[in-house]
């Protein structure tokens, strides 16, 4: 049994139900032809049926040993930590602006995730943030999110 298939299948089945419920609230067929509910209703049904099939097949294979490599949660944890750092950077964009938020994210990734000493992490974080400033706003005239400090 592949737990991942069952969990993802259940999530997609839920999405299918949501799409069907929403689509039923819109016009299906009007005097001018199909309404806004027509297409979503059909792909919602397809999504629900296919995800239930995926769950069914996974459960039927229940006794068989799990195919593929086992999930290494330590590796997944690293990826999710990186993602969390990225979303924290996004959350800080409005307050600190791009350069500071991005610099802090880089500092975290280099020092904590890649375990580089601060004497390496700080110059890398400052250097890449400076590089972004030189390339985007200065050379290419691309605007970056600005924080309360004005940069």
């Amino acid at each position: 049994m592949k737990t991942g298939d069952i969990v993802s299948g259940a999530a997609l089945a839920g999405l299918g139900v949501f799409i069907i419920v929403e689509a039923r609230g819109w016009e299906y067929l009007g005097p001018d032809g199909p309404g806004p509910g027509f297409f979503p209703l059909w792909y919602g049904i397809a999504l629900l049926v296919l995800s239930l099939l995926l769950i069914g097949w996974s459960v039927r294979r229940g006794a068989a040993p799990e195919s593929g490599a086992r999930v290494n949660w330590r590796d997944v944890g690293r990826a999710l930590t990186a993602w969390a750092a990225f979303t924290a950077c996004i959350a800080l964009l409005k307050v600190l602006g791009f350069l500071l938020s991005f610099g802090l994210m880089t500092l975290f990734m280099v020092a904590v995730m890649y375990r580089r000493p601060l004497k390496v992490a700080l110059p890398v974080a400052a250097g890449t943030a400076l590089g972004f400033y030189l390339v985007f706003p200065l050379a290419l005239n691309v605007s970056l999110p600005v924080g309360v400090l004005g940069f």
Partner: protein
Amino acid sequence: MCWDSEAVEVISGLLHGFAVALTPVNLFWCFAGCFLGTVVGVLPGLGPPATIAMLLPLTFQMNPTSAVIMLAGIYYGAKYGGSTTSILLNVPGESSSVVTCLDGYQMAKRGRAGPALGIAAIASFIAGTVGVVGLMLVAPPLAKFALSFSSPEYFALMCLGLAMVVLLAGESMTKALLAMLVGLWVAGMGTDLFTSTSRFTFGNAEMLDGIDFVVVAIGVFALGEVLGNMEIRQGAQLLPVPKGLRDLLPTWQDLKDCRFAFLNGSVIGFLIGVLPGAGSTIASFISYGIEKAVSKHPEKFGTGVVEGVAAPEGANNSETGGAMVPLLTLGIPGSGTTAILLAAFILWGLRPGPLMIQDNPTLFWGLVASMYIGNVMLLVLNLPLVPLFAQILRLPAYVLYPAIFGISIVGVYSTSSSLFDVWMLGAFGLIGYAMRKLDYPSAPLILGFVLGDSMERALRQSLMMSQGDLSILVSRPISATMLFLAVLILVAPSFKKANAWRVRAIS
């Protein structure tokens, strides 16, 4: 007589295209595209779709012709860049370069990294040029044929294209179909074009315009890939790049040995490229298989034979020309990369399809000519600059990956100036990573997303034409044939033999 006039049309179109592509501005953008594409493509784990998605925002302020020329250069460059890591490090930059590792890395280990890179560049040049010749000859008649298409035919064609992509996207067709359906759902978010009803907006005004494709493409391809790469703490040591890159020219004997490989890669790559869904990975594996099958010394394949590099690299590059045929003449992308290109065209107000050659000859022929020029540029650029590109591999992961996160934020923010879009980027990055972990292919999601609107429009217009009668889709011969083929493709894997072939083709 008819052939004569068509030949004259093609030649005059091509001459016009060269006049467009050879202007200093367009030459510069073609060069910049090839260079940037190679630089990003060299980085392991970032294939052409991620490269194009990340670099796409750079083209938003350019005129459409220059932008398309630059994107084509990025596409070529990214493909070429992938082979460098395969040969030097046994790390394929993308799935289509996996097969190049087999003999390319063995050549590098024996001190022939230079000739391996040289033959990859020459094979890419020859096959890439043949691919463009194919595009130039096949696209105009196909576009003329497609002029007879109406909404039912377009709907059927999109179903056929999606079915092909789903067939070959991954081991599980169910997961590929689910990914495609999620793509259709994401495409449906926003305001309905026919009735102005808001759909799946969750009461959020910023969702009324739908989700920008740059957000989805960068999130799923670039961030998803980088998050996957970040699972391993690999940044502590520098990657070992072999020495001996000064002598890049293959010997006369190498070139002689590769005669058939150049032809094989060119033809197979183009033909596979025209088919939606198959893509350069399958093209490279098939051409390698053919090369091995016809070789006088098949037992030597995998030990570092030069034909084992030339055939897949040629196919990988010739596929680009083939993939442009359905994109430019029918408006149907056959892969994740061409789906991003289609979305870019739409963003610039262009509509690839049968009328594109007629309505936008400057753009079409300019693109074709720039592909010729791009091939030459890559050859000239890559041979002397390979040692420089190899140095990029020395960039530690702890510098590279945060920089890619930063470029992704800038790319999305620069297109809409919306922090909401940047949040959505984070969400799609997580979805892209989860899809990788759970073995859901990402190409069907992107294709479903890019084609979703057009597919719904074509279906609803068809039903308006028939006053709600679904039989319009099967009562017209072309649409009936295409829908029959699409159903056949989706049903075929339920037969053991057909599924075994499919799984072999993928794995």
